[in-house]
């Protein structure tokens, strides 16, 4: 898995340009970061509407922060955004626990639904349900590490913990997912990665 790396200096230049009134910088920032925060919120909340609200809120905080951003501080805009997004998601989760998978939510929306892809869709749905059953911090660590593709150092900064704590969270999260999916695989009738029909 290729880890995603950010360039704090380049990010700061773009944000500084926005703070000086550069509309093109605003567009570049929006195109670059909105998908990241939206995808992370989707995976944390499993609710598209909620994820859109969180993504808009996170980006709004970035716009407000832009004039005060310390371009020489070395901080990463991406790391900061992930942290804000995660905190917003956890706040929403604490206010009202979602009742499992939203019936209107389909993270594979837009993906092919031909019969040939039903198995993949079923596995993805099972994984989404299993993720929502993890404790919030474990889910956050697993999503950041194995889906968003961030390194342990950056995840540690986002979650405000040490790198070893990140490793522990991701390991526990993956073990929990494995156990949950093992049960789901039996329910779905998987053997040798095929769906049993009877």
């Amino acid at each position: 898995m290729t880890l995603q790396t950010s360039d704090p200096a380049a990010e700061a230049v773009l944000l500084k340009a926005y703070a000086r009134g550069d509309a093109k910088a605003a567009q570049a920032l929006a195109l670059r970061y909105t998908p990241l925060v939206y995808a992370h919120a989707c995976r944390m909340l499993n609710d598209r509407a909620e994820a859109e609200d969180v993504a808009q809120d996170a980006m709004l905080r970035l716009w407000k922060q832009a004039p005060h951003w310390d371009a020489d501080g070395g901080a990463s805009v991406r790391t900061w955004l992930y942290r804000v997004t995660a905190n917003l998601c956890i706040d929403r989760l604490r206010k009202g626990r979602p009742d499992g998978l939203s019936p209107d939510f389909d993270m594979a929306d837009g993906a092919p639904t031909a019969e040939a892809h039903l198995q993949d869709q079923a596995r993805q749905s099972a994984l989404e349900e299993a993720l929502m059953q993890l404790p919030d911090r474990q889910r956050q660590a697993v999503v950041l590490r194995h889906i968003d593709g961030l390194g342990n150092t950056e995840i540690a900064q986002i979650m405000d913990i040490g790198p070893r704590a990140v490793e522990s969270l991701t390991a526990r999260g993956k073990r929990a997912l494995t156990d949950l999916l093992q049960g789901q695989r039996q329910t779905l009738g998987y053997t040798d990665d095929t769906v049993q029909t009877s």
Partner: protein
Amino acid sequence: MTQSRPPEDTALDADLAAMRDAPPGVSEALMAKVMADAMSEMPKAVRAPLWRQILTTLGGWPAMAGLAATACVGIWAGGVLSDDVLLPAPATESAALDIGEGLGAFDLLLVEG
């Protein structure tokens, strides 16, 4: 010796990778809202004070230093140099204008018609 990973770990990694490779798409509505927020929160371009605009137009601090030096020389010249140097000699009947020699063909140009 390389330990083989349990098949369920391999399958989970594959599922996680599939989720990573198929991120949920951002709707046009969300992107429009984000851009609208960006434009409304964008700091307005700050206008420089008038003195700074003039300074920039003149060429910055080096140019201002030259102007100041010139002004100082001018003030000094006005205060130090004698009137004999600065003021023209009063006109008299016997006064003759010595235009010097060696002006060649230009001497006639100096004679009032």
